[in-house]
């Protein structure tokens, strides 16, 4: 076999807890070079394509069109239309993230503090939708929001409206659809942090005379900020890159970068420009990844 059959022990510096490790090394079942196939695969099919994509947009915008002054990035960051698209992408992602925090926090609180024997069911109900197809869910919302769908019919039955409202292809179903897809991520992130908060801290605050709201605002909420942070980065990232929901529920009412990339690829076929737009998305994603790492590291230090 290809694995070296040398001694099991390898010199290590930091001692490991457990009886066996005292004085000895720790067992490594596979050599460190076993990392290589996966690492090489990702360098070739993940890093290189993204770098090439970045190069291409810069080369095309600056080398192939010297002096014309309409390089892709210049166009992207000066043309009012594209600025508005970038603005909408950011506003939508931030808005959806904020709604997910507000909608999801009470559910996370319920899951950790009150669900008791129902917590298995609650987690199942949170995860099950994640495994249904994105098309299925947008289809469901389209049925509900249709001209003669359940919402319109109900509103007409109770006499709030006389004629059906054209919900579809507007921003409202698109935002609802996005929140529907992303809120479970937020809830699970917040719940995993809430679970580790010592309930005694809240009890102490109450005993010392703080009201319920004050206890929540100055004890529970600050202690769970880490969970909100992790969830917010995740939801922002996913909202930032989504286009199916916006395409099928929002019509053309909200234009975002992913949607524009999709359209550039589909119809206009200006690939250099699409590369430039995808690079803007990539930079946002990398910034989020960096923030995520810092959050994890900070929590790691606290935990240790």
């Amino acid at each position, binding site marked *: 076999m290809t694995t070296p059959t040398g001694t099991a022990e390898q010199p290590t510096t930091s001692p*490991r807890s457990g009886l066996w490790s005292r004085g000895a090394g720790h*067992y490594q079942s*596979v050599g460190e070079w*076993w990392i290589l196939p*996966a690492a090489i695969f*990702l360098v070739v099919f993940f890093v290189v394509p993204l770098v090439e994509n970045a190069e291409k947009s810069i080369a095309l915008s600056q080398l192939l069109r010297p002096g014309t002054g309409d390089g892709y990035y210049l166009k992207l960051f000066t043309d009012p239309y594209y600025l508005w698209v970038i603005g909408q992408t950011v506003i939508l992602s931030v808005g959806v993230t904020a709604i997910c925090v507000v909608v999801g926090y009470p559910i996370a609180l319920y899951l950790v503090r009150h669900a008791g024997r129902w917590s298995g069911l609650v*987690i199942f109900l949170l995860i099950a939708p994640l495994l249904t197809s994105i098309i299925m869910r947008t289809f469901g919302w389209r049925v509900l929001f249709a001209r003669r769908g359940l919402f319109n019919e109900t509103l007409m039955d109770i006499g709030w409206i006389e004629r059906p409202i054209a919900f579809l292809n507007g921003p409202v179903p698109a935002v609802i659809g996005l929140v529907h897809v992303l809120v479970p991520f937020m809830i699970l992130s917040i719940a995993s942090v809430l679970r580790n908060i010592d*309930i005694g801290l809240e009890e102490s605050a109450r005993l010392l005379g703080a009201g319920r709201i004050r206890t929540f605002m100055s004890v529970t909420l600050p202690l769970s900020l880490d969970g909100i942070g992790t969830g917010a980065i995740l939801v922002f990232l996913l909202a930032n890159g989504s286009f199916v929901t916006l395409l099928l529920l929002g019509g053309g009412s909200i234009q975002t970068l992913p949607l524009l990339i999709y359209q550039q690829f589909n119809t206009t076929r200006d690939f250099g420009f*699409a590369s430039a737009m995808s690079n803007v998305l990539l930079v946002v994603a990398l910034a989020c990844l960096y923030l995520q790492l810092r959050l994890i590291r900070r929590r790691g230090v606290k935990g240790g």
Partner: protein
Amino acid sequence: MEGWSYYWENRGSRLLLTAYVVAFFIFLIAPILIVVVVSFSATSYVAFPPREGLSLQWFQRFWEYKPFLNSLIVSIQIALLSAALGALLGVPAALALVRSRRRLANTVMTFLLSPLSMPLIVLGFALLFFLSRIGFGVSFLSLLIAHTVVSLPYIVRTVAGVYRGISPEFEETAAILGANRWQVFVNVTLPMIKPGIFAGALFAMLISLDNLPISYFFGSAETNTLPVVMLSYLEHQFDPSVAAASTIQLLVAIVGLVILERTYGLQRIGMPT
């Protein structure tokens, strides 16, 4: 559990919270249930609640409409193969990284998991041009490579999670008792991490089945996956056959979820790390 009463000693506010939770789960589940109901429509148009009774005609249409069935086969092939390839590459890497003492190991782990944080549409777009340039073009192989970039990190994450929880003493004991490295790996390590491999691969398969942003760029008559066909169908027509296709896909996912729960436990996957 004790202590919650400090928070919600008021019965009314507790009732309010419960009502909110129920309303939330109706919001979460209703659009999915509606699609399942619509897939049994007897009418040729989409209506909820369905009129004129129920039927199985849309499942029959799914079966007879070639693009749906062909793309489902492509989807399943890609899901299985990308999970297998992801496991082949990811499992050894996860094992090596978990027990590595180098400072670099953390960075490498972050790198292996980083495709999960990239917008898939960007990844699909960039990969299409790269794979075309090196001559792979729009092909089954390209689609497989693109899906593996995403399935690999899922498998690395679950396998690393399981292996981290296993004490090295089992392997050390076997080594002391005279097993060589290969015997230790096959007889001790592999059986212990099996649930992790299985769960990670299953999870990657479910993600692959629903992956639209990447599959979209590699679409051709031979390489269209089910979500891509469903999307193009939806852009031209709105009839219950897409509901039937969704219901079939959901059925596959539920079977997967039940297996996952039995073998690994949902809670360990659900919590983002």
